[in-house]
């Protein structure tokens, strides 16, 4: 039963991804071509609201539904890891026009070929895990 709320939040997320048009390949290509403010407006608003909300959560030590104080785990500092990994993801994002959230939302739209991307992204994650020790972190 504790999972139902995650399912409901996921439904809202799928609707938001769709209505924001962030799931659209065209919107992502337009963003990288700097030909529209749309996606920058979405991400910018989300980050500004996110920064304010996150600061408040920390300030008032807000608790989650289980009664645990919400905490944020800082990521280990590294430049090559985030930069190289980020660049590789960016290449795939611009190609497919979808980051992981929209991948699943588009599956719900009934776009069958998106499963090709989903399955190969799982394979890509496996390849990272397999070669992890050989990569700079």
């Amino acid at each position, binding site marked *: 039963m504790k999972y139902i709320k995650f*399912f409901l*939040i*996921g439904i*809202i997320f*799928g*609707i*938001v991804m*769709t*209505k*924001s048009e962030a*799931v659209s390949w*065209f919107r992502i*290509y337009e963003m990288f071509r700097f030909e*529209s403010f749309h996606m920058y407006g*979405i*991400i910018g*608003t*989300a*980050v*500004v*609201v*996110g920064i304010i*909300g996150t600061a408040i959560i920390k300030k008032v030590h807000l608790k*989650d*539904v289980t009664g645990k104080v*919400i905490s944020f785990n*800082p*990521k*280990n*500092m590294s430049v090559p890891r*985030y930069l190289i990994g*980020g*660049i*590789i*993801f*960016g*290449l*795939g994002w611009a*190609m497919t026009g979808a*980051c992981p*959230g929209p991948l*699943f*939302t*588009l599956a*719900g*739209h*009934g776009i069958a070929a998106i499963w090709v*991307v989903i*399955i*190969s*992204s*799982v*394979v*890509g*994650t*496996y*390849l*990272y*895990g*397999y070669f992890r020790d050989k990569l700079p972190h």
Partner: protein
Amino acid sequence: MNQLIDLISQPWHWSISGFMIAMIMFLLLWAGGEFGVSANLRTMCSIGGAGKSADFFNFNWKSQIWNLVFIAGAIAGGFIASQYLASDDPVQVSQSTVQFLESKGIHPPETMAEGAGFVPNEIYNSWTWSSFIFLIVGGLLIGFGTRYGGGCTSGHAISGLSNLQLPSLIAVIGFFIGGLAMAWGILPSLLTLF
């Protein structure tokens, strides 16, 4: 109720969309989770038995079930939005993007916004070898890059930047270096293949 559905069915202003994405992040934190979709790809590897050949996948994936449920919800949400909340207008892409795509033989969205109108048919609905390989390569880059970089748009660009984390800023800079290189350097020639 019908008025509410009509209201939601219009394409949303970017400020509403951005605000709602931040709300999703807060709801997940409140529910005891966090906003990071690409972590699910690792969980799926673990469930599939990838831990036998790569230690990275030996972790307690059961602690991540909530996140799988979340993306199952996203699939359901995508279905609901495309079936019941679709707008009549196609995605309003800028005219310069439309002209550029037409010059490459890619048809801009001209049908309803949801469903097929969100993605180019040449890539997502043609089932040619070139589109198939294109999608496979794109997926591999997404899966490899997100785990190497420790997150995707939700984990780094939204959650990480909201928490003012420097690693997330570096990752987002990487997203754009890669995305711009693809959009300006590689895609213009690839798009003519379809």
